[in-house]
């Protein structure tokens, strides 16, 4: 058949002709626009509506930002300079910059101290956040809380040193006893740390010199965005270990411990943070001896830590529940005891699964630190609504100030969530 056919055809092309270029409308930007913006008439209408929304927003804000005035002393001066034109008075930010960041009572000559603490914080957080950095940097992380405390509050250096010594003693005892059993090491470490702190607590007032190296700052003088950062960092880092303990306690087969954890978690999750802050501001002092004066900052830290630890516990419980049962059984069959199984097999995997959830809680917590303005602390929102908007110079500059606070929070929270997505990709060990 094919032979006869070959004879009957005069000419057969022996090579393939090159493909013709696609039609103009099926390549490049035109194709992209046809597919992504004007696929159907309804879709085209949506595009036009979206363009209109963008136009309205930009037309409303851009001239306002572009005409912004950065160097006047008060709103009245600013309006004079603007002379009726549309424009922002960003000069409130430059003039009240320090108040927005540090609060209105933190001594100006000490501003370098929180800034240094912030720098140290970046160094200390880096090895925790990025695993490729040299592990030796973790020493900075371990020392950071004490250094930051001393930098921000000042006063005698003995307080952070004693605290550090307590942790060091606890770690030493743990190293010595953990070979026997984890529980012995754990409880031994707690007891050792408490002994050091108690002894140190007696010694500090006797031996502290009157003129400390760094002047003391009472914690009611802290304020501004610094207060938000401090509350956020302290409470998140304290509540992760507490949350892990609560989640493990809730899974425990010891009924008493399980029920303590369940009641704590459900109670905390059932009430809004505001009520817990009310507890901190008006109620908590009733529960401590009359002579003890826990300052408001510490009380707020306690309550926010409790609040976020309950939420983190639920996230970690989800991670624990998501692990296949075989992992628990494999740990048992290797002869690991509870503490070993948890430390070596269960928690590393469960925590990895929980990272997105924990980061969500951390972002939420950081945003919730603005609530302390309701109980009369001067964080950035408290500063804006209180001293700055109430002053005669700046009465009426709402958008610049609220916009500034929004931008600060957006940068931090968006940054954290981008980091968490990077970390998830980085830790993904499954082959999907």
């Amino acid at each position, binding site marked *: 058949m094919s032979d006869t056919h070959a004879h009957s055809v005069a000419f057969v092309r022996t090579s393939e002709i090159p493909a013709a270029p696609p039609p103009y409308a099926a390549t490049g930007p035109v194709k992209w626009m046809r*597919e*992504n*913006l004007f*696929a159907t008439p309804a*879709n085209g209408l*949506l*595009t036009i509506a*979206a*363009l209109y*929304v*963008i136009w309205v927003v930009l037309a409303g804000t851009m001239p306002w930002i572009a005409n912004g005035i950065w160097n006047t002393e008060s709103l009245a001066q600013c309006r004079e300079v603007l002379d009726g034109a549309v424009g922002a008075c960003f000069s409130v930010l430059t003039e009240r910059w320090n108040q927005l960041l540090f609060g209105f009572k933190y001594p100006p000559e000490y501003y370098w101290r929180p800034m240094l603490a912030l720098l140290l914080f970046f160094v200390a957080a880096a090895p925790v956040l990025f695993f490729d950095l040299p592990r030796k940097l973790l020493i900075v992380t371990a020392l950071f809380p004490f250094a930051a405390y001393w930098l921000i509050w000042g006063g005698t250096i003995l307080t952070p040193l004693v605290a550090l010594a307590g942790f060091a003693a606890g770690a030493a005892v743990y190293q010595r006893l953990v070979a026997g*059993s984890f*529980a*012995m090491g754990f409880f031994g470490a707690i007891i050792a740390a408490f002994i050091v702190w108690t002894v140190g607590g007696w010694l500090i007032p006797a031996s502290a010199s009157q003129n400390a190296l760094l002047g003391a700052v009472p914690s009611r003088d802290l304020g501004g965005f610094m207060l938000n950062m401090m509350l956020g960092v302290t409470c998140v880092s304290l509540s992760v270990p507490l949350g892990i303990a609560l989640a493990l306690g809730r899974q425990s*087969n*010891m*009924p*008493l*411990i399980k029920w*303590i954890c369940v009641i704590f978690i459900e*109670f905390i*999750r*059932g*009430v*809004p*943070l*505001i*009520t817990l802050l*009310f*507890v901190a501001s*008006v*109620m908590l*002092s*009733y*529960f*401590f*001896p*009359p002579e003890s004066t826990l300052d408001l900052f510490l009380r707020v830290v306690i309550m926010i830590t409790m609040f976020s630890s309950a939420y983190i516990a639920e996230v970690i419980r989800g991670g624990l529940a998501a692990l296949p049962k075989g992992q628990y059984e494999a740990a048992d069959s290797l002869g690991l005891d509870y503490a070993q199984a948890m430390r070596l097999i269960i928690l590393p995997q469960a925590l990895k699964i929980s990272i997105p959830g924990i980061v969500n809680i951390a*972002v939420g917590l950081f*945003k*919730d630190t*603005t*609530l302390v*303005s*309701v109980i009369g602390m001067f964080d950035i*929102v408290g500063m804006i*609504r209180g001293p700055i908007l109430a002053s005669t110079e700046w009465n*009426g500059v*709402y*958008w610049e100030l*609220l916009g500034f*606070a*929004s931008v600060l*929070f*957006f940068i931090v*929270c*968006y940054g954290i*969530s981008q980091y968490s997505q990077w970390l998830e990709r980085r830790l993904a060990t499954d082959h999907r």
Partner: protein
Amino acid sequence: MTTLTDPPQESFRLSMLINDTRYRSLTFQAIAAIVLALAIWYLGNNLLQNLRAAGLNIAYDFLGDPAGYDINQRLIEYDSRSSHARAAIVGILNTLLVAFLACVTATVFGVIAGVLRLSNNWLVRKLMSFYVEIFRNIPVLIWIIIIFTIMTAVMPAPRAFRGDEPEASMLLGLFAFTNRGVYIPAPVWGPGSMVVVATFIASIIGVIGYRRYATKLLYDTGKLLPMGWPSLAIFFLPTILMFYIMGRPIGLDIPELGGFNFRGGIQVGAPLIALWFALSIYTGAFIAENVRAGIQAVSKGQTEAASALGLRPGRVMNLVVLPQALRVIIPPLISQYLNITKNSSLAIAVGYADITATLGGITLNQTGRAIECVLLLMLFYLTISLLISAVMNVYNNAVKLKER
């Protein structure tokens, strides 16, 4: 041959309390019980001592005393001679009101934004992810303050509506947006209006009945009755007919400018609007993410299988994708409702008289009964949360995948 030997009866040694797993859990629980008891004793003892020193006692009879403060936004009768308990109830109702309103609008915003984030229109997709990121990453307290500022500082004063050439005018002649709140028309229930309402309710039941009947007919006989326009007709026609038969008994009381302020209609205060709107758009961004995740959780094979069976796109959505997506969407949606209820306590920042502002704010400050007020406040929120989680559990059990 087997030898049966009893295991040697071990005598109990003290070290077994730590080393033997059978007894170790008892040891730990005993330690925990002792620590807990000590902590409660310590805190309770301090509380009693502090109360004695301050000359206070825990008592709730202050709730019966006259409150002595006014509440602008209220759903039930209340004046300054009413008791603290009644002020608390006004607060509870206000909390429930704003939580309910915000739940409804947040769901609307969230579903629209979530679906649009999956649109194949690039610009709309980007715009919606911009909305979600902006609102999720800025504290809700700042949003509440921003919208409250818009309501009070940007909206025109009532006198701007005055004169022949007013600076501001009412929307559609019905709604007035002023810096004292929004005035909306109030319905006036004339005689016979109940008949109209009853007809309306009956026609809703009628629509449901008709759709049930049509579905049953379809399943039994394969006969397809039209669904769309008969439902609409049953929904609207009888009510409209009855409305005119009864001589238009339901009227509108449109707000009017009188003196220095608007009269008539319903005044919705700026704090309520600020709280409602801020909670809606803030939580809407979270709900949008839940909706997007839920729709994406339905595997593509389901859509393809449905189209392979010959279902039209609308039916693919209604009969295949949505029922499966809702199973994923609804549990986080309900916990967002819970978040709205808890976040409504931020009302205190803009002076909306919810339970936190009445019981936890003014009543607490006037009576000095901090412990009682905060405990009652927590009790209220706990009750609400437990109720909502109970609803969630019922739902989860109802839609749980029946595994073979």
